[in-house]
């Protein structure tokens, strides 16, 4: 019988099937952060039980941390208390904790792959919906709620019905200036934010084969924004060479055994998906969102759709445009912006900073723009410095902040002020997501860079072509 990649990994992790109920699903590796874990640890305490497998559990502080002056005590007492709680809980249960200031600290979905925690064929969960990022390695990875965090701490399992399967093929090769972020935003714009709800997605086709591991992480990261629980890409030589030698990856003989298994992690040729969709790479251009969910986006050269041409509720659509203070039919190009945010688990890796730097090099930050450039981890920060990117950024008038989730969800002080427009490389443009009243335009690091140097929405391809000329 033929199986999908998803079937192979899922079925090998079912401890027990419950009739007319969920599977008891085993979790190989559990990532924990400060915001969604304290109530779960409290639950363990109330039951007087310990973490079953602390060695399968990894904790970091990222959501609620400052991105400047991390060497000083955290000023906000509530945030400080939450960080302290994770530190205490980790120590009490013997969980490795990479807190603020630790060399391995960073955004949970950036540091997992960096440390080799993320492996093909593994099951990975975290109390964060962007856990789907780790699917880039051929893992089944998805976000869970705090009750489920407690289950995994207590029993290394959750109760989960098996999702349906969907394959999304993107064929051909990407055009000049089109990045993995654009591919993901394009798919979401076609499917809507609920188009893949109930499904687990496998991304296939030439575009994903050609993509770097970091690009694949960006795509899988955004799976949740089309409603999918997660997304995954079959592992290949790029995957294996990324993993080899990393701290938590198998070594020596264990590596050879793992490789034998990992090479079987492909969807069989005649396997059938519950749903299959195909897109052409040549149809994708740099994307930007104009509304208040990630599905409300389009090619940067295209205008804002008319309400009459939009699927779904017209009143919801109009409410969304009213929040953004945009009108139907307007062009996105040349809209003035106030902030640029480069970072997050979606686009806070070294390739994202390289892309950003490639455009700002030799240019200057626009005077009307406040830019927050936030590396996803200390390792990313180190690479920015080592590769000379920091010099390029400084030369162009930009500052680098310290790692964390930052303005992606604005739990810390990095809040876009009310009414202001931010071109952001993060993942959500919901009302108030980046601060009460903030208005977010989601885009790639290239589009963000073009906005940062021009002070308005600008097609990066024009600047890139000028650089080539």
């Amino acid at each position, binding site marked *: 019988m033929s199986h999908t990649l998803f079937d192979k990994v899922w079925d090998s992790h079912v401890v027990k099937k419950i009739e007319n109920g*969920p599977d008891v699903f085993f979790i190989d590796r559990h990532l924990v952060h400060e915001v969604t874990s*304290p109530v779960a640890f409290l639950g363990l305490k109330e039951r007087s039980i310990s973490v079953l497998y602390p060695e399968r559990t990894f904790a970091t502080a990222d959501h609620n941390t400052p991105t400047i002056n991390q060497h000083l005590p955290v000023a906000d007492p509530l945030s400080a208390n939450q960080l302290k709680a994770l530190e205490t809980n980790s120590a009490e249960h013997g969980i490795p904790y990479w807190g603020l200031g630790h060399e391995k600290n960073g955004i949970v979905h950036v540091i997992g792959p960096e440390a080799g925690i993320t492996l093909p064929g593994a099951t990975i969960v975290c109390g964060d919906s962007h856990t789907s990022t780790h699917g880039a390695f051929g893992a089944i990875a998805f*976000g869970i*709620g705090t009750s489920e965090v407690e289950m995994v701490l207590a029993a*290394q399992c959750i109760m989960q019905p098996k999702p349906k399967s969907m394959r999304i093929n993107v064929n051909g090769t990407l055009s000049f200036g089109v990045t993995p972020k654009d591919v993901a935003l394009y798919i979401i714009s076609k499917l809507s*934010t609920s188009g893949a*709800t109930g499904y687990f997605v496998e991304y296939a086709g030439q575009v994903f084969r050609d993509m770097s591991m970091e690009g694949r992480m960006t795509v899988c990261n955004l799976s949740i924004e089309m409603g999918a629980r997660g997304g995954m890409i079959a592992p290949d030589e790029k995957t294996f060479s990324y993993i080899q030698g990393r701290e938590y990856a198998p070594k020596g003989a264990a590596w050879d055994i793992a490789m034998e298994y990992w090479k079987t992690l492909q969807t069989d040729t005649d396997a059938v998906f519950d749903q299959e969709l195909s897109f052409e790479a040549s149809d994708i251009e740099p994307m930007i969102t104009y509304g208040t969910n990630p599905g409300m986006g389009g090619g940067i050269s295209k205008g804002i759709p008319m309400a009459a041409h939009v699927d*779904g509720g017209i009143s919801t659509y109009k409410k969304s445009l009213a929040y953004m203070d945009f009108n139907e039919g307007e062009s996105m190009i040349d809209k003035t912006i106030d902030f640029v945010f480069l970072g997050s688990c979606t686009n806070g890796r070294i390739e994202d900073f390289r892309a950003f730097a490639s455009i700002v090099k030799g240019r200057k930050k626009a005077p009307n723009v406040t830019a927050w450039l936030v590396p996803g981890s200390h390792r990313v920060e180190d690479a920015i410095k080592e590769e000379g990117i920091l010099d390029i950024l400084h030369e162009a008038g930009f500052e680098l902040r310290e790692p964390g989730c930052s303005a992606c*969800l604005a739990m810390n002080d990095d809040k876009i002020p009310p009414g202001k427009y931010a071109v952001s490389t993060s993942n959500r443009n919901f*009302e108030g997501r980046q601060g009460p009243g903030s208005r977010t335009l989601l885009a790639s690091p290239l589009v963000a860079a073009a906005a940062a140097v021009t002070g308005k929405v600008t097609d990066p391809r024009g600047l890139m072509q000028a650089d080539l000329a």
Partner: protein
Amino acid sequence: MAYDKFNILESTAVPLPIENVDTDQIIPARFLKATERKGFGDNLFRDWRYNTDGTPKEDFVLNNQTYSGKILVGGKNFGSGSSREHAAWAIYDCGFRCVVSSFFADIFRNNCLNIGVLPVQVSPEFLERIFKEIETDPESKFEVDLSDQRINIVGSGISEKFEITEYKKENLLNGFDDIDYLLNLESEIKDFASKTPF
């Protein structure tokens, strides 16, 4: 976490006829700093419910005395976005025991089920009917019968069946939680874990 048993709920309902209500609207991230599960109801729909100076926005449904009840009725794709269970906690803390919509985001649905809030998915037509009933008469009552898996518009004779797995239904009817179930499986889980490659 233990929760109240759910069997039959009869109540008026609070309408929120907006699609794609995401969990950042249900509870914004800046209110997720607590280390205990209490008090989240104060910030339910914070930025739709209150002005920046903290005064209530009169036109928001939770500030309108006309509407009350233990059932929250939302538009399609309710609970999308972040996995924060705080969204379900905030809804529970405000007194809701049931959320009705024509479509739910996966993680939100699970989070509700795990804390004893029943997500009831109805057809788009039935959802429209519910909104109309409330619009016509805010005192309209709805009966959610979990055993029978049916939601009734009380007094109208109109009802619709809803889906839930037998396992989750039993849990809710009895107030059982998954952790109790899993702790009883410990030896099977340990045996399984010993054979995993990583």
